[in-house]
């Protein structure tokens, strides 16, 4: 009797799991079919199959052996490890809704993600990083069927001036960065407390007064962050609403909010620049 019951339970499990597994979840065979995935970064070619040892040793604990971010550390890590199967990445040089370039993925591995459990893996050689990028890509069917987006163009950086910083403050007010980041950049805007990522988990906006931006802290990185958006998070792309020249103004204004000493911060102090007034009437962008 016991045996029969055991069997019927097993059958039920087969009935219930089989259709789910075939539709929703990627199988080992899916990954094996893409083991030939390559990456091309500068003059280095990465091969997925050569990254298996490094991935197993350094990455699998968080990202999991299926690359779905369900490694054994998953319950204890916040922000949660990236699910590579979805092919959605925060740090890209490419427009929102497109795949990152191989260089973008390599940069993220080398840089790490500040205020997360992802450290900078700058001990890896360029070859190791390129191999790992290929391995990360092989988890998602998207890299086999789609091309990365075209990286956004970043014009050369102009000279910082008081006028540009003031203009940047206007952009900050117009596109309403403060809704989440707050008028002082301290992540305390009216919408900050209810933000969720694409998987419905609570997420905090960047606090400009502490830590480094997750996708890099150079002026070019700041420019790229708000023009591409951080996919998978509430941070949208502003590419349609901020012109390239205005974007540099905004970068300079953002520097004034950061605690790090900078030329911009000194100028803002001299100007006696105040946080934006959220009660001022909204200024249309004039791009209609």
């Amino acid at each position, binding site marked *: 009797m016991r045996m029969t019951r055991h*069997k019927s339970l*097993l*059958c039920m499990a*087969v*009935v219930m799991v*089989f*259709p789910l597994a075939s539709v*929703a979840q990627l199988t080992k065979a899916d990954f094996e079919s893409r083991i030939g995935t390559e990456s091309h970064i500068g003059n280095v070619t990465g091969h997925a199959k050569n990254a298996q040892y490094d991935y197993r040793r350094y990455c699998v604990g968080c990202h999991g052996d299926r690359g779905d971010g369900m490694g054994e550390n998953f319950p204890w890590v916040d922000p949660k490890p990236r699910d590579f*199967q*979805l*092919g*959605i990445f925060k740090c890209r040089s490419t427009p*929102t*809704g*497109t795949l990152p370039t191989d260089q973008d993925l390599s940069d993220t591995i080398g840089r790490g993600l500040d205020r997360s459990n992802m450290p900078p893996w700058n001990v890896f050689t360029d070859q190791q990083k390129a191999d790992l990028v290929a391995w990360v890509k092989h988890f998602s*069917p*998207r890299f086999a069927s*789609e091309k990365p987006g075209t990286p956004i163009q970043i014009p050369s950086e102009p000279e910082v001036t008081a006028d540009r910083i003031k203009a940047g403050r206007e952009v900050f007010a*117009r*596109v*309403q960065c403060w*809704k*989440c980041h707050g008028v002082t950049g301290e992540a305390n805007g*009216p*919408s900050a407390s*209810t*933000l*969720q990522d*694409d998987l419905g988990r609570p997420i905090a906006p960047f606090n400009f007064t502490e830590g480094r931006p997750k996708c890099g802290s150079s002026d070019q990185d700041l420019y790229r962050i708000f023009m591409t*958006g951080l*996919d*998978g*998070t*509430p*941070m*949208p*792309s*502003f*590419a*349609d*609403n901020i012109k390239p020249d205005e974007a540099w103004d905004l970068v300079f204004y953002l520097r004034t909010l950061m605690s790090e000493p900078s030329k911009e911060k000194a100028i803002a102090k001299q100007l006696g620049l105040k946080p934006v007034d959220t009660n001022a*009437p*909204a*200024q*249309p*962008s*004039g*791009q*209609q």
Partner: protein
Amino acid sequence: MKNLQKLAAVLMAVMVVLCGALLLTHDVSAASEGKISGTVKYEGTPPHMRGIDMSKDPYCAKANASTSPHMENVVVGSGGGLENVVLYISEGLSGAALSQPATNVPVFDQKNCEYTPHVLAMDVGQTFKVTTSDQTAHNIHPNPNPMTGNIPWNQSQPPGAPPVEKSWKAPEMIEVKCNIHPWMHGWFAVVKGPYATTDANGNYTISNVPPGNYTVTAWQETLGTQTAKVTVSGAGPAKADFTFKGK
């Protein structure tokens, strides 16, 4: 153990047959345009739609000062008609009706910090437009499953922003959110072929349907789906009414 293997084999065979049956479609020629119309009703007491507190954004609160904004998951008209139900042909379409996406451009507007319409239906590959009528910043953030071929994106729309024009690659009911205003919640209902959405009285008409035998599916975001078999002939619109029962 042998029995188990046998059962698994039978199960596989049954599933293969089922899949085959699902894939079979009737071939119809697009001789003349037909219509499918009907009414979708809600039976029972409509569920309570929670009110929305917009006080976090003074613009939104002011825009709704004279109304009492509430959730729109189930919208029932005075005669019991169910609004925002998407109707589409789930079986029986083929050929020309499937290969050419509709050419009109449906518009999804952000107005008074809500989505108008709440559900925007569209064909796979059909261009649609997202606009903003508001003097407050929104971000338009659909969240499809990337495994379907539809890729999530997230774009800001501050006051005066130009429209965002996009299309989707695969049929899917896609949730749309604004992270800035967490109560804002809508749908892109992406289907293959001709479609319609019910009006405030629950009425709908699917146009441009070639003669043939079809299964029509009615989808409602919280009440699920229902199907009906219809035959479209040359004479007059085919009828398909649906009733969703409350709990």
